[in-house]
């Protein structure tokens, strides 16, 4: 019987006043009953509009049908045909602008909670299925993947399933890319990422950590070592700063540095040797998901007042609505239409205030968003001892600067076609390294697309 409720089953959460004191996951996930009840809201439309909204075209009505039948493992099998990281994407995908935005139920009331159902299925599988995937028969060919983030892991997984001998080279000491250094524990538990990586290893994927391609090894050397195709999934990890006075004062972080200290290096734990500034007042500059992650992490580190300073209005914020709501519940203070102009230091060169101006929205710019202009005479000081710059990242230049014949665009992104082919034969690229900072699901999709193209390429060469 279809469930005609106009609203989604609510996601169980840790209460805001409790969760701001820990780094445990905020959203607790559906129970089996809640999942089946929510699945029954799906009308199983024949034209499947939701599938068109999914960057990797998961058979959404198909897996939801299995949930209705309580065949949760069956649902997992359907999702894993299209997605390599369902437990991750169920948590961090912006479903409200993808699959759920196309849901027919959303025309009147809320769409089906597709993201929450995906997460439920993936978590159910992790909890109840003990078997690790068996390594497939090897086909005798070798492929290299640079970067163990979402794009690289997805690419490696698919290649391994096709029988390739795959080695992933990762610059950091831990695989996972932005999933381990960027997205906080309370939004994406690291155990989940670890589990996905263990699965890849079970498929026979080798992961070489502490290997910086472009420094220790050049792309050309990978071919000399016998790799027949190379995938570059190095992401967009270079932080941008505002170039305002005071940015090099002590207490100014890039969001990358702040989050890396917290997530990868576990600076929030007593037993970690990595230091982090625990300030009473923290200002995070920017309005994206990363800014929300930084602000909420700062709160959990014990800050009393955490500000989001954003030059446009709340409606223009690129962060997901859910992240903004969670941040507000946790007491993050939103200073929208506010732009920093200078960071002020004390006599010891520690940050003591952020000088800001108020903005008002003018005419829409080329991105379609109304561009902010300074309100004259609106300058004011925000007392803060820590400023976290979260205004975007660019691709890392290490490989670009050390590899001949790899075309890049003016933003430093690799130029690649829809199958990930770059200007160099045998070199493929995908994810943020090609698109600039985007989403986990797009990177994963690009990695899988490239795996297909790499397979075709290697087969055409060995024919």
């Amino acid at each position: 019987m279809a469930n005609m409720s106009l609203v989604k089953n609510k996601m169980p959460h840790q209460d805001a006043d409790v969760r701001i004191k820990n780094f445990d996951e905020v959203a607790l996930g559906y129970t089996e009953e809640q999942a089946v009840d929510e699945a029954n809201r799906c009308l199983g439309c024949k034209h499947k509009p939701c599938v068109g909204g999914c960057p990797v075209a998961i058979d959404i009505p198909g897996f939801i049908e299995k949930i209705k039948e309580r065949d949760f493992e069956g649902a997992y099998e359907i999702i894993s045909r299209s997605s390599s990281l369902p437990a991750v994407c169920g948590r961090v995908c912006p479903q409200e602008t993808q699959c759920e935005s196309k849901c027919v139920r959303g025309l009147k009331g809320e769409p089906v909670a597709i993201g929450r159902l995906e997460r439920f299925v993936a978590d159910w599988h992790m909890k109840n299925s003990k078997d690790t995937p068996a390594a497939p028969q090897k086909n005798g060919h070798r492929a290299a993947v640079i970067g163990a983030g979402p794009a690289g892991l997805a690419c490696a997984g698919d290649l391994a399933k096709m029988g390739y001998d795959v080695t992933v080279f990762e610059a950091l000491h831990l695989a996972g890319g932005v999933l381990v250094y960027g997205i906080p524990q309370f939004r994406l538990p690291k155990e989940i990422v670890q589990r996905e990586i263990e699965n890849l290893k079970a498929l026979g994927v080798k992961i070489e950590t502490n290997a910086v391609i472009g420094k220790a090894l050049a792309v050309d050397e990978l071919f000399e070592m016998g790799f027949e195709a190379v995938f570059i999934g190095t992401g967009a990890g270079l932080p941008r700063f505002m170039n305002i006075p005071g940015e090099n004062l002590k207490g100014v972080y890039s969001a990358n540095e702040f989050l890396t200290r917290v997530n990868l290096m576990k600076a929030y734990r007593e037993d970690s040797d990595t230091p982090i500034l625990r300030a009473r007042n923290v200002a995070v500059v920017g309005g994206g998901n990363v800014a929300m992650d930084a602000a909420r992490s700062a709160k959990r580190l014990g800050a009393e007042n955490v500000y989001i300073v954003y030059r446009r209005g709340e409606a223009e914020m690129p962060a997901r609505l859910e992240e903004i709501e969670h941040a507000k519940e946790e007491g993050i203070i939103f200073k929208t239409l506010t732009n920093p102009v200078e960071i002020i230091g004390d006599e010891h060169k520690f940050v003591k205030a952020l000088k800001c101006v108020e903005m008002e929205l003018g005419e829409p710019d080329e991105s379609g968003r109304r561009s902010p202009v300074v309100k004259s005479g609106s300058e004011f000081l925000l007392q803060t001892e820590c400023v976290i710059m979260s205004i975007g990242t660019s691709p890392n230049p290490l490989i670009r600067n050390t590899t001949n014949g790899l075309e890049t665009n003016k933003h430093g992104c690799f130029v690649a076609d829809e199958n990930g082919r770059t200007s160099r034969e045998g070199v493929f690229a995908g994810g943020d390294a090609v698109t600039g900072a985007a989403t986990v699901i797009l990177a994963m999709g690009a990695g899988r697309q490239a795996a297909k193209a790499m397979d075709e390429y290697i087969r055409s060469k060995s024919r």
Partner: protein
Amino acid sequence: MYEILRKKELNPTVVLMEVYAPMTARKAQPGQFIILRVDEQGERIPLTIADFDREKGTVTIIFQIVGATTEKLSKLSEGDRLCDFVGPLGVASHTDGLKKVAVIGGGVGCAIAYPIAKKLHAQGAEVHSVVGFRNKELVILEDEFKKASTKLFVMTDDGSYGEKGLVTNKLKELIESGEKYDEVIAIGPLVMMKFVSLLTKEYNIKTVVSMNPIMIDGTGMCGGCRLTVGGKTKFACVDGPDFDGHEVDFDEAIERSNMYKDFEHKRHEETCRLFQKVN
């Protein structure tokens, strides 16, 4: 991986370790650095490469015991393994075309100055090395420098060995006596590099310094290692660690280097207490 093949105490607070790290050894060049972690809870610390042996696949690091991490590192023995060791990172020192160079080393910085002196000497340049220490007990790498230098001057703050005085005193004396250097390379404490740079600026001698700021990833990702060089922000990990000494904002770098002083001090004491209990 990352087995410590050789360990030697160069003085009571400075330790040399030769580590098995073939991937790093293959490409290592003087001036580049590595990042290591001692254990799973460990922080990532950058150390400049002191030497390397491509055939043996080893990289030598020399470090001073200054905090919790270097304390823990110093307690490891030959045969122990480091948790992580990544490199070579950063841009190698430029030595091409240099005919006559003054290499200035201060304290543990001599460990980094030495491979550069060695490389310059090997390519036939005239190398005047001036190395400074607080006292006789702390002198390191004297024999090595002797072999790699045309002239070597050892300075101590208290005059207990070599000549009494600062490296800048000796450098000034050499310049005043008519020595014409293509370049001065200064590696040591920030204060020393600052004053060497101020001195050479007066004489308009190009000066290169090696910066070693706080960093995490070493690949340009965190921006924690940023410095102001010639009025512009640079990342020491990918743009350096070598920079034009006349352009570096040393006062800012000195301030930034003590950002976590309190935490480091507390952590170091805790670590020392822990080792006392064990022993």
